[in-house]
């Protein structure tokens, strides 16, 4: 089984992260991540796919320790193994967390083209983020940063630039360089190429994979673009309405999608050279403040059965590396 928990760099068990608000006495709870379990192995790119508001970004925030109210982690655990050291993310205090952030665990945020401080040179951002973790005197530190930029095919002169002087693609590369300069064990990347043009996107993806492979880091790569996953991810998890519904190696998921939602996502991808009619999926994505009972996909599912309306399917293995949460795909799981 792929759940070799002892080996995994990241182990997430039954994670539940909800947005809870209470305004004028009206309690509202949005269950953005509702019972997600997964493992990420060393030197692996784990792709996470799903449409907007399915909880992808919330899951990344929860595993990158970037939780801010009203988002709260209500249950489950997030545990990392950095070398021989094991840490459980939500047992750490603020000081311990600050020590592992960037050094072991880095996070490329959504819209990271605009996270650089517009009033400071790129050099200052590198000093702010990485200086304390590298722990070398300043001239040596700058030398390390320059060598790192060169490895990523960036001119060291970008250090003297202000963010507005760089193009979107360059800024994106700088943030990736920033996230990898401490050679972290784990990188969480949230839609890092979504705002880029196709030509630039391809080269940024190549850079991400090259640096990940060179460092042997593990990565969680989030995007809704299935074509990016096909080219980058080693394993792929599909999220729908706050839950993981399918997970397997990228080739398996593309070749034999087991969940009807995944099957639809893959079948509806338009391809150049193929103009066969493709259908959209009926219905609307569910409201996470009031998700449908049973399987959350059942109102839109072409295979929905009686049981799907009442009970939520659990993830079950259908091969050594492939698991799915669906009664129709996994007949033994149906009660």
């Amino acid at each position, binding site marked *: 089984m792929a759940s070799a928990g002892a080996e995994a760099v990241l182990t997430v068990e039954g994670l539940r992260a909800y947005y809870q608000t209470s305004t004028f006495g009206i309690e509202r709870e949005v269950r953005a991540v509702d019972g997600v379990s997964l493992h990420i192995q060393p030197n692996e790119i784990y792709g996470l796919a799903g*449409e*907007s508001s399915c909880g992808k970004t919330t899951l990344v925030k929860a595993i990158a320790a970037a939780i801010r109210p009203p988002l709260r982690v209500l249950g489950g655990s997030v545990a990392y193994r950095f070398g021989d050291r094991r840490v459980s993310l939500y047992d750490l205090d603020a000081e311990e967390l600050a020590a592992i952030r960037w050094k072991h665990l880095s996070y490329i945020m959504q819209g990271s083209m605009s996270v650089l401080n517009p009033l400071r040179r790129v050099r200052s951002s590198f000093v702010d983020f990485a200086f304390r973790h590298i722990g070398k005197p300043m001239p040596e530190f700058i030398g390390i940063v320059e060598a790192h930029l060169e490895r990523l095919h960036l001119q060291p002169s970008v250090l003297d630039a202000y963010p507005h002087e760089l193009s979107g693609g360059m800024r994106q590369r700088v943030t990736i360089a920033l996230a990898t300069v401490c050679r972290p064990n784990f990188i969480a990347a949230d839609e890092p190429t979504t705002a880029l*043009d*196709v*030509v*630039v*996107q*391809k080269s940024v*993806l*190549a*850079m991400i*994979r*090259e640096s990940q492979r060179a460092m042997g880091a593990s990565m969680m790569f989030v995007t*809704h*673009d*299935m*074509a*990016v996953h*096909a*080219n*980058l991810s080693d394993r792929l998890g599909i999220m729908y309405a706050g839950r993981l519904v399918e997970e397997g190696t*990228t*080739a398996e998921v*593309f*070749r034999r999608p087991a969940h009807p*939602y995944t099957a*639809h*996502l*893959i079948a*509806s*991808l*338009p*391809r*150049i*050279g*193929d*103009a066969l*009619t*493709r*259908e*959209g*999926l*009926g219905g*609307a*994505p569910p409201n996470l403040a009031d998700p449908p009972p049973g399987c959350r996909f059942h109102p*839109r599912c072409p295979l929905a059965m009686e049981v799907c309306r009442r009970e939520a399917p659990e993830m079950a293995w259908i091969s050594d590396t492939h698991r799915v949460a669906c009664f129709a795909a996994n007949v033994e799981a149906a009660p």
Partner: protein
Amino acid sequence: MSEPLLEVRSIVRTFARGGLLAGHPFRAVDGVSFRLEADRPEIFTIVGESGSGKTTLARMILAMVTPTEGSIRFQGTNLAGIRRRRDRLAFMRQVQPIFQNPFEAFNPLKRVDRYLLMSARRFRGARGAEVESAADRALRDVGLSLAEVKGRFPHELSGGQLQRIAVARALISRPALIVADEPVSMVDASLRMSIVNLFKVLRDEHKVSIIYITHDLGTAYYISDRILIMHEGRAVESGDARTVLDNPQHPYSILLKSAVLSPDPAAREETLAT
């Protein structure tokens, strides 16, 4: 019927870039020409990267921006000559826009049915019960109904539903041309193809020509009849969509096509090789 539906003749649009003294004009659109025939509804796609002038071109066709040089004629009328309110309304009745982000296109504090009813009054001159029936008919054409959207605010609807409502609103005036600027890039993947398929229906059943602006070559191949590839304000290649995309000739078109990631994990190793 010799008069074309739309004739764009070597239009240029410049914007001032830089400061007052050091500024220099920047040609966002630089000598683009094409024409759409009146008796042959089609989906005409304009593709290009961001900053290639696609949106500026669309805004000129919608008469929201005036060209610096060149002319745009819609059914024989030069858009630069539209001055009076009556002429503008007549033009807007014929040419309707659909914008990229449906969440920004609709005012969040306004019920979405008001847009439909207002369009029916203004463009169709509908009064009384006619207003609602015109709105309902347009919504039924896109697979919704007035009962579903009446009284709802934009946040109560999904992006796909809102974009359908935007299409319905554009249909109320029975236009001859719809200009859709990246209409599916903000819509969820599971709903995207239903919007794209809707454009085919508009072309085939409602005889509406559509200018579809996108950076996604996959959907462009799927629905387009003709295509125009833009790069730095210039049209670098145009022609039959399938022919151009199957076998691009211009170096930029070849680059653009080669950068499209294939949704097939079998071919992955070569794609991201550095």
